[in-house]
C-alpha cells in the first residue's frame, strides 16, 4: 500500500502522535494464538441445543403439525411451535418505524420460502435435536409460488406476504422510492445518443469464518444473558424484547470479537428463539447455524435488477439518466426496504447529471429472504452504473477513463437528491489510477481538481 500524502495536503493535519501511526493491533496476538474468546467458547453445564425444522416448500399452507414423536425422542426437552412465541410476528426495522411487522419467528399457518423455520427442537445434544427434528410431521398444502421480481409485480401474481397486501414494499412515496431532478424526458430529447441497458445479479453469501449463533444462560433472577455474535447489540436486544414481550431490563447481551459479519449478522434470527428456549426450560441454550444454514438459510445479498437509460452527447456529457432498481427481498422485509431506498439515494452515481429520474422497488418473492450485505443497496448499482459508463464511452468513441472525468462530480455540484457535493475526490482517484495503471489521459484531465474554483 502506498499513502499519497501529496494529495489534499493543504486540508490535512499530519504529524499526530497516535493517529496515522501503524500501531500493531492489541488484539492480534490473541487471534493468532487462538486465545480470543468467541461466543461459542461459552459452555454451560446442562446446556441444550436448538435445531430447526424447516420448510421443504417455497410456498405452502400448513394443515397440521405433529410433534408427538419428536417429543418422545430420547434427549428431547422441549419442542416449540408458533403458539409458544409471545409476539410471533415481527419485523426488525420496526425500531426505526419501518413496518409493517411481516415475518414469523416460527411459521404460523403458512410458509413463504424454502427453508423457513417451522418448529424448534431443544435437546440434550445436537444429535438428539437433529434426530427429533426429523420426526416432526408437518402436513403441507403446496401453493403456487413466484420466483421472479417482474412476475411478482404483474397483476394476478400469487401474493407472497399478506402483511403487505401486494408484492412490493409500500413507501410513503408509493410503490417505490423516487428521486426527480430536472426534466429527464427533455434531456433524452436533446441527447445525441440514448442507451438503455439492463443488469442483474445473483444472491451471494457473506461467508464469515464464524457462523451466526448465540448461547443463552438464565441468570436465576429472571434475567437472561445472551452471548452472541450479532453486529448490533441493542438493536438485537430491543427486537428480542418485543418478540418475547419481556422488558429490556431482563436481557443482558454480551458480544465481543466476531468472526466476520459483512452484514450477515444484523437480522435478529437466533437470539429471540434461543432466549425463549432458555426461559421455558430454565436451562442454557445454544443455537448455532451449521455451515449449510449459514449458506442457504441466513439472508444472502439480494438478487437485484437495474435498468439504466442514459442520454449522452457526442462531447461526452451525460444529459439525462433514468434508473429503475429492483431489490428482491424474498419473502420478508428484514432490511430490504432500507437497502432499496439507499439505492435511490446513491444513483446516478458520482457524476453530475442535470436530469435524473430514479425509482427503486423492494419486491417480495418466494425466495430466501435477503438482507444487508457489505455495500448494501449500492454494490450492484455500482456494477450496473460502471458497466453502463463503459458502454457509453465506447458508444461515442471516447476513452472510458476520460469519459468519467467529463462527468465526475466536484465540490458544489448539486446532486439529484438535492444536496450540494462536498469533499469530492473522484477526480483525484482517477488521476492517481491513470498513473498507477499506466493508462494515460489528456493533460487537461490531469489538471482538473475536485475543489470548487476560488474556494
Amino acid at each position, binding site marked *: 500500500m502506498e499513502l499519497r500524502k501529496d494529495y489534499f495536503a493543504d486540508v*490535512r493535519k499530519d504529524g499526530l502522535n497516535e493517529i496515522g501511526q501503524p500501531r500493531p493491533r*492489541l488484539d492480534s496476538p490473541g487471534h493468532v494464538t487462538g486465545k480470543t474468546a468467541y461466543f461459542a467458547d461459552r459452555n454451560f453445564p446442562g446446556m441444550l441445543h436448538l435445531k430447526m425444522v424447516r420448510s421443504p416448500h417455497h410456498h405452502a399452507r400448513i394443515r397440521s403439525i405433529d410433534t408427538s414423536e419428536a417429543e418422545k425422542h430420547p434427549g428431547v426437552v422441549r419442542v416449540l411451535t408458533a403458539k409458544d412465541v409471545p409476539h410471533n410476528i415481527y419485523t426488525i426495522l420496526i425500531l426505526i418505524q419501518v413496518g409493517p411487522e411481516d415475518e414469523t419467528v416460527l411459521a404460523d399457518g403458512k410458509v413463504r420460502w424454502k427453508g423457513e423455520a417451522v418448529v424448534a427442537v431443544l435437546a440434550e445434544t445436537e444429535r438428539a435435536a437433529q434426530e427429533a427434528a426429523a420426526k416432526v410431521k408437518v402436513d403441507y398444502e403446496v401453493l403456487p409460488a413466484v420466483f421472479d421480481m417482474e412476475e411478482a409485480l404483474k397483476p394476478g401474481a400469487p401474493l407472497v406476504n399478506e402483511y403487505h397486501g401486494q408484492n412490493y414494499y409500500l413507501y410513503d412515496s408509493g410503490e417505490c422510492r423516487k428521486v426527480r431532478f430536472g426534466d429527464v424526458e427533455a434531456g433524452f430529447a436533446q441527447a445525441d445518443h440514448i442507451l438503455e441497458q439492463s443488469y442483474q445479479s445473483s444472491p451471494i453469501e457473506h461467508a464469515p469464518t464464524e457462523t451466526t449463533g448465540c448461547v443463552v444462560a438464565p441468570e436465576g433472577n429472571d434475567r437472561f444473558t445472551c452471548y452472541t455474535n450479532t453486529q448490533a447489540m441493542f438493536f438485537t436486544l430491543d427486537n428480542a424484547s418485543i418478540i418475547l414481550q419481556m422488558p429490556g431490563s431482563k436481557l443482558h447481551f454480551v458480544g465481543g470479537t466476531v468472526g466476520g459479519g459483512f452484514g450477515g449478522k444484523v437480522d435478529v434470527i437466533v437470539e429471540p428463539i434461543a432466549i425463549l428456549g432458555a426461559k421455558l426450560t430454565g436451562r442454557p441454550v445454544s443455537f448455532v447455524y451449521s455451515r449449510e444454514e449459514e449458506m442457504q438459510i441466513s439472508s444472502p445479498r439480494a438478487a437485484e435488477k437495474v435498468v439504466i437509460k442514459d442520454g449522452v452527447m457526442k462531447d461526452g456529457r451525460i444529459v439525462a439518466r433514468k434508473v429503475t432498481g429492483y431489490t428482491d427481498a424474498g419473502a420478508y422485509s428484514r432490511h430490504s426496504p432500507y437497502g432499496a431506498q439507499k439505492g*435511490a439515494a446513491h444513483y446516478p452515481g458520482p457524476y453530475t447529471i442535470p436530469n435524473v429520474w430514479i425509482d427503486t422497488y423492494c419486491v417480495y418473492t418466494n425466495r430466501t429472504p435477503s438482507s444487508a450485505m457489505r455495500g448494501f443497496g449500492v454494490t450492484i448499482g455500482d456494477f450496473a452504473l460502471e458497466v453502463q459508463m463503459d458502454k457509453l464511452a465506447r458508444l461515442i468513441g471516447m476513452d472510458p477513463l476520460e469519459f468519467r472525468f467529463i462527468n465526475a462530480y466536484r465540490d458544489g455540484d448539486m446532486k439529484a437528491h438535492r444536496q450540494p457535493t462536498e469533499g469530492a475526490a473522484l477526480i483525484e482517484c482517477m488521476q492517481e*489510477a491513470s498513473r498507477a495503471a499506466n493508462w494515460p489521459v489528456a493533460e487537461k484531465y490531469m489538471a482538473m481538481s475536485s475543489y470548487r474554483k476560488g474556494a
Partner: protein
Amino acid sequence: MAIRRGRGVAAINYPTGMNLGGDPTQALVHSTPTGNFMVTLSSVDLGQGMKQIMAQICAETIGVPTDRVVVDTADTDTGPHCMGTFASRGTHRAGNAVIQAAKEARQVMLEVAAEELEVNASDLETDGQGNIQVKGAPQKSISIFDVALSAHFKRGRSISGRGMFLIPRSYPEKETGAMKPSTCYAHACTVAEVEVDDETGEVTVLTVKNVFEIGRALNPKMVEQQLVGGSWMGISHALYETTEPYYPNRDHGGTDFNQYLMPGPGDLAQTEIVVLERPSADGPFGAKGPGEMCANPQIPAVANAVFDAVGVRIDTLPITPERILRALKARAAS
C-alpha cells in the same frame, strides 16, 4: 482459440454511515487511579479492529500513548447504546463519540494538573508520552500517573467524559426525493487487467490497481488489511459467487466451502493499493468509512476488462465461464 487480454476501469463513491442518518452511538471514557484510560462502548468488533482504532482515537485525544487505553465493548449492561457495526459507520460514529468523551475527560485531567502545578489549565499541554507540561516551559510538568492519583485520592475529581454522536435523521421528500443520505463519501477508482480463454471461458485476473480516498488513514496497516481484503472480495463477487447457481431451481446451492465457489490463494490477482486522504468535515480526524466501498469497484472493472478482452458483455453476475461461452457462441451465430 486464444488467451485474450483486456483491461477495464471503474470509479465509485460510497456514503459513510446509515442511509439518512438517525443512527446514534455513545461512548464513556474514564481514568483508572493510575492514569490508564477505559473506553466503554457497546459497539461490536467484527474482526476489522474496531477496538484498536477506538484506542488510538482516545489516546490521541487525551494525549497518552495508545497502550495506556483499554477498550471495553459489546456488553449491554455496561456499554452505552450503539446502533451497531454496519453501513461503514463504526469508525465514523463511534470515533466521534470517543473524541467527545475523551475531550471531556482530558479537560478534568488538565484542571487537576493545573491545581497541582498552580497554573491555569489553559496553559497546559500533553506531551503524548504520559506527561502534562506548561506550554513553552516543558520543565514544569507532572505525569498523568500522578495527576490521576491526585484526582482520585486528594482532589475528589472524576477524570471521565461522556460522548454522543448523532446525525439527525433525514426524511426523503415524497415526490422529489430531496434528502440528506450521508454527510461524507469515500471514493475509489480501480483498473483491472484480465486474461480470458475464449475456448473455456475462464477468466484470470492478472492485476488489480485500486486507488481509494478514505478521508484519513487512522492506522495505515489496518487500512491496508481492510482494503486488500475488500479488493479480493470484489473479484470473488464478480467472477465466482452465487448461492443459487441455477435459480429458481435450488439444487447445487453451495453448502460448504468446497461447493460454494470463491477464489483460492492461487486465483488472487496481484493487488496494488494507493490511498488518498481528503479529510471529511465531520469525521474523527477526518476519517470516512471505507469498509464497504473497498469491495465494489473491482466488480465493474473486471466486467469491463472481460469485454475489452473478448468483446462480449456479461451484464449478469457472476461472470462465469458458462456465461462467457454462451455469449461468445451467440455472437458467432449472429
